[in-house]
């Protein structure tokens, strides 16, 4: 009996060690954002502040509030649109199969593997031609389009679990394609919607590349780009930068903790049939 106990203790020590390692950056993020300019110089990043202050947090918030609002606007809009379109695609591809629907799905999945860098120049040109450069609309359009492949895949896998007989029953009951979507498929989609929404929110919110390429101006600039500007031009103000980072990371953390339960269930639903 001694041996398994020893193993358990070792396991816990290892786990605590890795958790500590993993959370260390978060810890320094919080401590540094509460430090005065002097404290940043006199203490190491890991040490707690000597005279804690919320000043960097307030300053950073004032500097970032416009861009945070921008980010919220296009993230939520693109998240909703890409989830809705992904859901409709998934429904059509699994339940209303048409000639060549597998081919279409293949093209969607190819979309997942195209690196963003590869399309950057044509993207910027296209968005400028559409008059959406430096515009929230341009970001909404881009993020929606690039979200569709992954949301389509996710919804398609989920809808494959809905028995075809349910759809056939609705058809003979007198429902057309859209009525079936609205009244049967959509109400059954809470789980994939939560999963896709978390996924989309996180990846759109965290995006830097599209933001910096499409919206440098203050009117539409995302928080991720603004954060990079907080570094300053001459010396890095670490406390301000960390405070900004904290504000920037907060929404994703909140959403993740609030909906983690659904996220796990959603992943499982895709993994195990029935």
């Amino acid at each position, binding site marked *: 009996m001694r041996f398994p106990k020893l193993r358990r203790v070792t396991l816990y020590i290892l786990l605590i060690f890795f958790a500590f390692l993993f959370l260390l950056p978060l810890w320094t993020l919080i401590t540094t954002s509460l430090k005065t300019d002097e404290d940043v110089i006199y203490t190491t990043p890991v040490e707690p502040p000597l005279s804690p202050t919320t000043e960097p947090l307030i300053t950073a918030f004032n500097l970032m509030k416009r861009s945070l609002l921008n980010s919220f606007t296009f993230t939520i809009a693109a998240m909703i649109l890409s989830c809705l379109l992904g859901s409709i695609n998934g429904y059509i591809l699994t339940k209303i199969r048409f000639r060549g629907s597998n081919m279409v799905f293949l093209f969607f999945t190819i979309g997942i593997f195209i690196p963003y860098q590869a399309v950057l120049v044509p993207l910027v040109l296209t968005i400028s031609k559409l008059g959406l450069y430096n515009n929230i609309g341009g970001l909404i359009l881009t993020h929606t389009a690039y979200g569709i492949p992954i949301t389509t895949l996710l919804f398609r896998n989920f809808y494959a679990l809905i*028995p075809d*007989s*349910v759809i*056939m*029953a*609705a*058809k*003979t*009951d*007198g*429902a*057309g394609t859209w*009525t079936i979507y609205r*009244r*049967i498929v959509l*109400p*059954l989609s809470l789980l994939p919607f939560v999963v896709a929404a978390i996924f989309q929110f996180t990846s759109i919110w965290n995006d830097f590349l599209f933001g910096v390429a499409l919206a440098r101006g203050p009117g539409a600039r995302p928080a991720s780009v603004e954060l990079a500007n907080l570094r300053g031009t001459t010396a890095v103000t670490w406390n301000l930068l960390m405070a900004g980072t904290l504000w920037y990371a907060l929404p994703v953390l909140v959403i993740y903790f609030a909906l983690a339960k659904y996220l796990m269930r959603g992943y499982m639903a895709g993994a195990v049939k029935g």
Partner: protein
Amino acid sequence: MAVKDLNLKINDGEFFVFLGPSGCGKTTTLLCIAGLLKPDKGEVWLGNELVTSAERDIQVPPQKREVAMMFQDYAIYPHMTVLKNIAFPLEVRGEDKSEIAKRVNATANLLGISQLLDRKPRQLSGGQRQRVALGRAIVRKPKVFLLDEPLANLDAKLRVKTRTELKKLQQELGVTTVYVTHDQVEAMTMADKIMVQRDGVAEQIGTPEELYSHPANLFVAGFIGSPEMNFTDCTIIEEGKRLWLDAKEFKIPVPAEVVSKLKSYVGEEVIMGIRPEDLYETKSVEGATLKNAFRMIVDVIEPVGPYLLLHLRKGLLSLVARVKHTRARVGQEVSIGMDRNKIHIFDKKTTKAII
């Protein structure tokens, strides 16, 4: 190809059963009637309306057809209450609210599920779900019911009870019903007419009585009836101006009325079939002649309840006889007779029935 060259007419108000082993194309046929599948060739008429024609490129969508379908897994909408499930076909058709309420209540009363209307499907037992699915099908008063193995997922006792109820319901409503099953007892007990299907081909269409007494071929003969019909190879021989069936272990004269049909088979091998209930133990049947009787050894005795099954053996021949009672013991030799008028003869090559 799941179904080929099927030509079928179902009369108004008929209870029509598609019977066959799984994968024989019966569900495919059903889906074609419903409009959920489009055949590569051929036409479907509902009454006087042409609803499917591959040649003329007509395919009326299922929602425009006056057919209601019930699925083997019931396909109840999991997020809706029983009430909403039954009301769904009426709601999507835009019926007005008071009419919907009236008809849903009437349907629920008819099926005895009024007390379940507020429940969600996951709170229901298998039998209750089956009723909800049935309610959803009958609430809109369709011209045709299509039922795809509606009893397959119920336990044995409930299945028998529901079978009777379903038959009664169909008679009351008088709606033309197409019923798919692989269970021959269901088919025999419920159907006005049965189509036996195999590998997409209609083997025989007829009343249960016709299929049982006059199976058109070896497959139908073997598929219908439980326990199965006994089959044995025989040679037709002519001896003393009479035709005989020679099965090596026994030899019986061909009944006079069918001699003409078998004349051309003299010297050839055919397959003889006899149902277990048409075999008897001469000892326990009063006035039975011992003429043409033959002796066999009792291998197994299966008491079923209302009757017994005697598994008999002699050489390579084995037969099952269904008898009311017996004094025989396992291993004993008994004298077996058969009702010669109930003999079926099948052509060995074509497997078609000769008599």
